[in-house]
């Protein structure tokens, strides 16, 4: 419906800002996430809490308490920003003197380094979500990709132009193998993918320990669970050279290509169209001649392949070796990917931004902890709160009294466990 009467620009902007547009909801969720973080900082910092307890003691006390709160919260978020994006002072220094660029660029380089595998694995999970498939096994697929790529990276010796792509393809293949198991089981026996993928994760973890403790792959001269170091020809070189000390590697280009591929795949390819139809309405997909079986197998192969690629990129661009704790526990990018995909609404660009946000919160949280003593876990709390509010748009709508519009629901959050 085009507006017949001319509406003033600010009115229209305001209307957009107060509508339930998905982006608006996400922005408000971000605000809420940081607000909750601020409240946590306030209530867990002893000095701030003491100041608030003493506000009735003298006239100046309330002002002091408020100032202290702002100082603490401000310092926390400031270090989070300067530790993950750029420190304005350092940037100014570099711009005026032309020196110290590596120091200035370190925060953003770290954020990109962390975001790189996250983008890749989250896009894999997002594509599965769009097809109505809950791939909880992305982590195991990433681990197997890392192992497969690692084997090629350590045990074959070739010039880089062949070695790196070959190891990369091995990583993709490893993820595809791990992904095809639940895919085939679901397609041909109806096994529930959530159960199968969760279980398969543990199988892969056990295989990882076996691999890094077995003679050909284990680091020679070591008894513990660590692999050989990747050949230099199978590592992603740092984007700005080793001398810069900046860790960001050519892996980011792989991630960028994955974003472009995902955009083409979902928006432009015939197979991606089949996937989206299947995800949005499985019955209509069937009636339109789309084979549910081949879609299920293919989506797992693609999702797993991307997870495997992410696993290899992670190892080949940072640690250059794999140990028994590779991507396990808190380092499980395959699980973070689920929340990132939700936050990014399963769209490639959304996932890109969400990954950068999550990486920045993690990297900035590290700076925050080391400089202000506020634990890094606060970053995790903020991430969780943001996702919580994005997943429950009704809450955000009520809190900010947004008008009805295209309601930003996350279909998969509610339907993922069905069928």
């Amino acid at each position: 419906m085009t507006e017949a009467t001319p509406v003033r620009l600010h009115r229209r902007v305001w209307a957009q800002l107060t509508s339930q547009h998905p982006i608006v909801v996400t922005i408000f969720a971000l605000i809420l996430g940081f607000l909750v973080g601020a409240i946590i900082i306030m209530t867990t910092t002893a000095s701030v809490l003491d100041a608030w307890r003493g506000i009735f003691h003298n006239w100046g006390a309330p002002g002091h308490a408020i100032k202290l709160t702002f100082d603490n919260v401000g310092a926390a978020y400031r270090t989070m920003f300067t530790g993950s994006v750029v420190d304005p002072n350092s940037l100014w220094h570099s711009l005026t003197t032309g020196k110290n660029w590596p120091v200035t660029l370190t925060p953003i380089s770290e954020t990109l380094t962390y975001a790189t595998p996250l983008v890749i694995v989250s896009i894999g999970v997002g594509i599965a979500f769009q097809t109505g498939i809950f791939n909880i096994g992305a982590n195991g697929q990433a681990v197997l990709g890392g192992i497969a790529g690692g084997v090629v990276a350590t045990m074959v010796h070739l010039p880089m132009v062949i070695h790196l792509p070959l190891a990369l393809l091995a990583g993709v293949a490893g993820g595809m193998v791990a992904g095809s198991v639940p895919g085939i089981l679901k397609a041909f026996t109806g096994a529930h993918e959530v159960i199968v993928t969760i279980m398969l994760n543990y199988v892969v973890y056990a295989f990882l320990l076996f691999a890094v403790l077995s003679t050909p792959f284990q680091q020679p001269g070591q008894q513990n669970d660590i692999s050989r170091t990747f050949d230099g020809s199978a590592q992603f070189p740092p984007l700005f050279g080793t001398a810069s000390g900046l860790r960001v590697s050519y892996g980011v280009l792989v991630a960028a290509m994955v974003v472009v591929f995902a955009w083409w795949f979902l928006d432009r390819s015939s197979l991606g169209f089949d996937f989206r139809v299947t995800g949005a309405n499985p019955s209509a997909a069937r009636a339109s001649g789309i084979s549910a079986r081949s879609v299920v197998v293919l989506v797992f192969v693609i999702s797993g392949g991307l997870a495997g690629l992410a696993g290899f990129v992670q190892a080949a661009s940072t640690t250059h070796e794999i140990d028994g704790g590779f991507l396990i526990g808190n380092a499980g990018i395959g699980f973070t990917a689920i929340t990132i995909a939700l936050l990014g609404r399963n769209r490639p660009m959304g996932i890109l931004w969400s990954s950068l946000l999550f990486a920045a919160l993690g990297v900035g949280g590290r700076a925050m902890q080391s400089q202000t003593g506020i634990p890094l876990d606060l970053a995790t709390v903020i991430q969780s709160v943001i996702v919580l509010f994005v997943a429950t748009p009704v809450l955000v709508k009520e809190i900010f009294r947004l008008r009805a519009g295209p309601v930003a629901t996350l279909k998969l959050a509610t339907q993922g466990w069905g069928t």
Partner: protein
Amino acid sequence: MRSIRRLSTMLGAASLVLGTLTVSVVATTVSASAATKFKACVVTDTGGINDKSFNASAWAGLGDAKKSDPSISISYLSSTSSADYVPNINTFIHESCGVIVTVGFLMDAATTSAANAHPTQKFAIVDDAPVVKKGTSVLGLQYETDQAGFLGGMLAAGMSKKGAVATYGGEPFPSVTLYMNGFVAGVRYYDKTYHAKVKALGWTPAKGACSLSTCNGKGTFTGNFTDQTAGKTDTSTFFSEGADIVFPVAGSVGLGSVAAAKQAGKGHYVMWVDSNGCTKDPSDCSLFVGTVAKGVEPSVEAAVLSAAKGTFKAGSYVGTLANKGTALEYGGVTIPSALKAKIATAKAGIIAGTISVNPNNYPVVK
């Protein structure tokens, strides 16, 4: 619905607060931490600062240093996986830490490359002696824990009623197996010298002597330093095989042994490792016959203080019974004075070099 509305008003107000706050974030420029204070930093391994073991000891060493010299500020970063070692160390380098303490042999590679890239940066690494370029300033902190482990083995052997004691490790690192090797040597020495008919389970030494960098053999390992369930399972297995005292060398995994001893009931004890069990876990003190302690805290404290004073010396430090860099500490169980006397004699012998801590010198006769 109404209450949500009310909440929304409150949160609306709070969002205004946040708005102002963002302004203040941008407006404030120079951070307070840029003062000239000396900063000591520790990067822990995946166990974190609450592992009641060597990560906790390293962090406590920083705390002790701050107590001795309040002008020192301290900070830590935990690694969630080995992928965090490098960025954690880098973060501290960029924040101009006076000294960076890294914990554990696993961080060898990350510490070495950081030290080579930043030769002026002072590092101290616990349980490792990295090979670094000349001109760098890295202090390796190592401990001949087989000496105190030997005394621990004697204590366990002397206290055992069932004639068997056991040990297990987290992962087969030299810093772990050295303890186990010394423990087994102590048990065998006690068995042979006092005809006690007691045996050690969980570690079979390889031929040859152990050193700080290699200590081979076959034994029981949980595969990590965090899985307490695995520690409990292994300990229960040892109990069922006839052991009554177990010596876990696996950081916080040892808490699983405590749980297993509690479950097994009277007469089952644990020998704690690294730092005094009765201090780290007071509620379970009555289950600890003793602790084979490693002087991580004092040596880290000394390293930090020397760095703050400008007297930091790169190279390596080796803790022994003689310099109290490793020691046997008694726990919450009453020890007969006769046994204490035997242990004191052995200690003097080890320091004097008259008693060997190599288990192969006390072969088991079958």
